[in-house]
């Protein structure tokens, strides 16, 4: 959690250099969900995410230098520079992919879980998404199928109150909580404080236990808040779609700070622990950035390399210039 925070802050700081030339959606303020959920996952479990994916990628063990190189558009990036911040992947870590069309990775995650069922593989899949994604029809189609096949999938919705600049009030009927949609599909659901990593952890653990026991899909809705602008490194509480007060209220619920305080109050954490970790993380981040910056660009002659997989592709060779 601290690691995600410091890395995201590091990105925010460096973004002004204009060398990360792709849209970034930071999860500062929401780290507890990534951290708490992924902590209960095994190496073989799989995760997918959407545009705001850094936290999920890192928490699942995604390679940091490869992520930074991806953001710098380098050939050493996790997607070879083809994807940028919105298209992260680390198959070795079980991070199967993130793409930025709202809602679209939810059915794909269900497909992973479906394959596990067909292949008799015991893993659990976690689909992370924002509350905006629950407005897309494909979310419902995915939930229905997951429920129908009783798939081993955990749906994790980070309800940060906004979809870009749009508050919940213009998007769903007042008084109808998000998790109730999952109930409608017959999927067991829980709501929790997404800024309390222990609560997230506990709910995730309970859910994973049930899912692994074969109870079918579960749905967790976590209340949380994004601190920075929807897309980009800055604070934007002054542009009018939300208030500074609201932000300050939520900042008091900082998941990192709450956990730090709890640890120190309860004696299982010391300031010097935090300091030590922070230094380590900053070093790790600096090294990743250095790696990214030093990496070479994808060469233009490779631009058409990955349009098609060449393996098992009994296709007549056609000119590279066009289809």
């Amino acid at each position, binding site marked *: 959690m601290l690691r995600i925070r410091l890395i995201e802050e590091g990105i925010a700081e460096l973004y002004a250099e204009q060398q990360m030339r792709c849209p970034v959606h930071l999860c500062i303020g929401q780290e507890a969900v990534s951290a708490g959920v992924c902590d209960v996952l095994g190496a073989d479990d799989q995760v997918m995410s959407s545009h705001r994916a850094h936290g999920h990628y890192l928490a699942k063990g995604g390679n940091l230098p490869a992520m930074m190189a991806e953001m710098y558009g380098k050939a050493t990036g996790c*997607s070879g520079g083809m994807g940028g911040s919105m298209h992260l992947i680390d198959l070795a870590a079980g991070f199967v992919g993130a793409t930025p069309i709202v809602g679209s*990775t939810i*059915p794909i995650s269900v497909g992973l879980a479906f*394959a596990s069922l067909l292949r008799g593989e015991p893993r659990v899949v976690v689909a992370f998404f924002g509350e905006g994604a629950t407005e897309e029809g494909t979310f419902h189609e995915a939930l229905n199928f997951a429920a129908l096949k009783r798939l081993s999938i955990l749906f994790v919705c980070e309800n940060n109150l906004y979809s870009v600049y749009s508050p919940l009030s213009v998007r769903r009927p007042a008084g109808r909580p998000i998790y109730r949609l999952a109930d409608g599909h017959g999927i067991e659901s829980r709501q929790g404080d997404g800024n309390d990593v222990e609560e997230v952890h506990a709910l995730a653990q309970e859910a994973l236990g049930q899912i692994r026991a074969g109870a079918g899909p579960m749905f967790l809705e976590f209340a949380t808040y994004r601190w920075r602008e929807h897309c980009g490194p800055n604070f934007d509480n002054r542009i009018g779609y939300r208030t500074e007060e609201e932000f300050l209220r939520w900042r008091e619920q900082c998941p990192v700070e709450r956990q730090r305080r709890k640890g120190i109050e309860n004696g299982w954490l010391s300031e010097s622990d935090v300091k030590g970790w922070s230094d380590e993380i900053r070093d790790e981040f600096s090294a990743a950035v250095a790696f990214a910056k030093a990496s070479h660009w994808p060469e233009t002659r490779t631009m058409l390399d990955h*349009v098609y997989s060449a393996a098992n592709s009994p296709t007549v060779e*056609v000119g590279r210039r066009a289809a």
Partner: protein
Amino acid sequence: MPSTYTMRDSNPTSMARELKYCQAVHEAIDLCMGADPSVYVIGLGVTDPKGIFGTTLGLEQKYGSSRVMDMPCAENGMTGVVLGSALAGMRPIMVHQRIDFALLAMEQIVNQAAKWHYMFGGRKSAPLVIRLLVGRGWGQGPQHSQSLHSWFAHVPGLKVVLPSTPHDAKGLLISAIEDDNPVIFVEHRWLHNISGPVPEGTYRVPIGEARVLRRGSDLTIVALSHMALDAHRAAQTLAGEGIETEVIDPRSIRPFDEQTVFESVRRTGRLLVADTSWRHAGFAAEVVARVAEELGGRLKCPPRRIALPDCPTPTSPALAAEFYPTANHIVSAACEMVQARAWRPTVVPTPFSLDVPDPSFTGPF
């Protein structure tokens, strides 16, 4: 009048077994399922008593319901599911009974599946076949008979095939299933009942290779999907009029085998393209454009296109005959192009009439 139309190869292997197109599709699926346990079939109706015009009949009984399965009516979400399963090692074959229904699934097909391999730098491929059926006749009407293959052809990352013979249906479907990329497999409803020679066992027709259905020296006709039948039939009539046409079925429109077309037009000097869809911004334009770019100055007459009139499909049977171009249209155009004479043949041998493919076809559906 025969109850089904048989299109023979220009070089028929006379010993070859004949199958219907729908049986050829069925056999391809059956063979691939037998060979590879990761192949599965999913789609509305694939397990039902009609078995997608016979193409999936009995497969559930043979391979079990975890390999051949119905699904909820949720085209976009289920395409995502199928894609996800492909990322996890399965080789799904998804079926939509009409291309029109797949309009719901464009996001998953075009944004996700088509780009998966590329946008993740080649880390992962998405082996996935989507069979899309094109409806026609018996009042299918505006929302059950579109032929939107040119849309898919526009999108890098997809492969798009639309075989017109049973032989190619089987060979291309096997190639498609074995391919590691998403392949759009377009089947015209009126092809399902045609018969033709189909070798036994597994064989592959490479994706991206055109097929010359007939050799000729006066005019090259590039005809897509069901229009290949009309072109073939027109060619017979035209031969009687002293016009020798070369009929090319591209079979794949992404990738597109321009060389075969160029080579032919270099000889004939004339190009006619027949498509099952609308003319404007349709695939026929691509064929004409490529030939114009490559051989522009060397054509003996301007190229032409035969396609649907610029309107949605009208339902009334009174308009079906006017809406769909036929072998007659091809014959007329060919006469104008080659002999500079206007001739509208009154009768062309055709097993089709009005709005049904052959007498064995009666509504509903």
